[in-house]
């Protein structure tokens, strides 16, 4: 029976047979959900409206007029920018340092280790570190004579506190990506830069960073996606609070769906999230697009 799958024969059957299983999964759990969430985003559906009622753009309009929605979007943007930039800088910095020393593996391992910690565990650990009265961070600040910080219990710091945990966990991973990228850069380029008398900073600024473009694109795209996924820490560390100060889009959506059970509005938020993601990814590829195509092939 398998002989029908000989190369050159029944090409169409082969393709269908080989693609169908994975396409079925993609269809059922990625593309159908996308379509259905856009569809439901135009309906009112909540515990008291068991049969969804078509309301057109009303859900969207209500969100656009809701200051809390804008606060959540702002938080999401702050969250993304404030995690991505420091993470990338730290990753790049340490990648270059490690690339230039002889003993690599210990530092590589130590800086990467946080990536292995599950987010649920990370949340637990950092809730303790941030504990305002007996927690190590405030005690350290105390030692330096600095004022204590309310961290998770304060509107100013709760989002920052979560951002710090993201940076801690991820910069080691991105460092590895950059390290891999560095291996592809020819040593000759550095040597000729050195001959020209370029300093350490200059060499990296003009040689390393431009050539790491593909790695940077990858890191950028992955971090953008990360910032839309960071649910666990928010749920376990602050529950979006105090107030809405650390609510980001994914947590806000979760609340509408599984706390208020407003599936229509939750679908609206999901659709907005999908559109934002697609827009950002297209943007990223647009900026770096040409340089990356060669690399991705």
């Amino acid at each position: 029976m398998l002989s029908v799958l000989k190369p050159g024969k029944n090409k169409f059957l082969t393709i269908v047979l080989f693609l169908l299983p994975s396409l079925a999964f993609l269809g059922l759990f990625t593309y159908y959900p996308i379509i259905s969430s856009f569809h439901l985003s135009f309906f009112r559906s909540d515990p008291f409206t068991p049969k969804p009622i078509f309301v057109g753009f009303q859900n969207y309009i209500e969100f656009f007029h809701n200051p809390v929605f804008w606060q959540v979007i702002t938080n999401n943007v702050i969250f993304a920018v404030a995690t991505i930039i420091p993470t990338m800088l730290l990753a790049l910095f340490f990648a270059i340092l490690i690339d230039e020393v002889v003993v690599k593996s210990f530092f590589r391992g130590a800086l990467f280790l946080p990536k292995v910690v599950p987010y649920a565990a990370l949340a637990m650990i950092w809730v303790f570190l941030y504990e305002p009265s007996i927690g190590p961070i405030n005690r350290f600040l105390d030692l330096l004579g600095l004022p204590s910080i309310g961290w998770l219990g304060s509107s100013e710091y709760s989002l920052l506190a979560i951002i710090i945990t993201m940076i801690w966990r991820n910069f080691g991973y991105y460092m590895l990506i950059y390290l891999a990228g560095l291996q592809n850069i020819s040593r000759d380029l550095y040597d000729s830069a050195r001959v020209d008398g370029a300093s350490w900073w200059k060499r990296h600024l003009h040689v390393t960073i431009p050539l790491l473009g593909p790695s940077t694109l990858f890191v950028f795209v992955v971090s953008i996606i990360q910032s839309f996924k960071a649910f666990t820490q928010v749920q376990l560390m602050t529950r979006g609070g105090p107030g809405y100060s650390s609510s980001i889009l994914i947590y806000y959506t979760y609340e509408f769906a599984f706390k208020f059970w407003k599936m229509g509005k939750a679908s609206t938020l999901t659709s907005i999230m999908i559109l934002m993601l697609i827009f950002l990814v297209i943007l990223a590829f647009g900026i770096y697009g040409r340089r990356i195509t060669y690399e991705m092939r």
Partner: protein
Amino acid sequence: MLTRAGKWVKYTILTVSSLITLVPFYFTIIMAFKAPKQILSGRYLLPPLHPTVDNFLRVFGAAPFLTYLLNTVLVVTGILLLQLLVIIPAAYVFARIDFPFSGAVFGLYVIQIMLPLQALIVPNYRVINTLGLVNTRLALILPFVGSGYCAFLLRQTFKQVPQSLVDSAIIDGCNHFGLIRHIFLPLAKPTIAVFSLISVATHWNDYLWPLIITDNDSVRTLTIGLGMFVQHQSGADWGLLMAGTLFITGPLVLLFLFVQRSFIESFMSSGIKG
């Protein structure tokens, strides 16, 4: 050539940064072996003089963590095996067979990489609900099976297989299955190892999806079990929490320490190709 001073500066920076990065691990470990009173008094900074395993006993007494562990292992292996099972043939087709719109179809897989399941929990919950799978382990597995990332990595690898090898196998009478088994998979072993490590580490970590899809100890995973720890109504018992934290992090950290090389290499190569 490095100057001596420059070298020192670099090593100092690296050492200090590594230690700072490791501080949270230090606290987790020492706290897990301390009695609650020692922690409350605030004098917990040094390793305990009289370490106690009491916290661990209480963790196991309080929640079925072994069931959680079993569930987690079942779920992550289930995801990985199914991913490989459905994606390998697809990647093979994309890498080796030309057909109209193959680029567009492959695009569907690439886009999936950019749309994390977390963003789609609401509609996916409704799908799983319609299938009647809420509160089953299967529900924890299925949505992750169609991995665009896996397709991407494998297609890259399969493309690099020399056509001459394939041709001679065809002359020997191999069909597509035979080609995949005897030529492509053996050559793709490193890539599969890379993907496996990443997949296991990723799904060990899943939290949001299991949170909404399970409500029963018999199907809960480790991360959810740990999450429930913090949320009981009164009192944050740090020793207990850290013992639980250590238990769910331990397996991954050990895995990391044992296969550090391949772990690091996996994650390094996840970038270039992905």
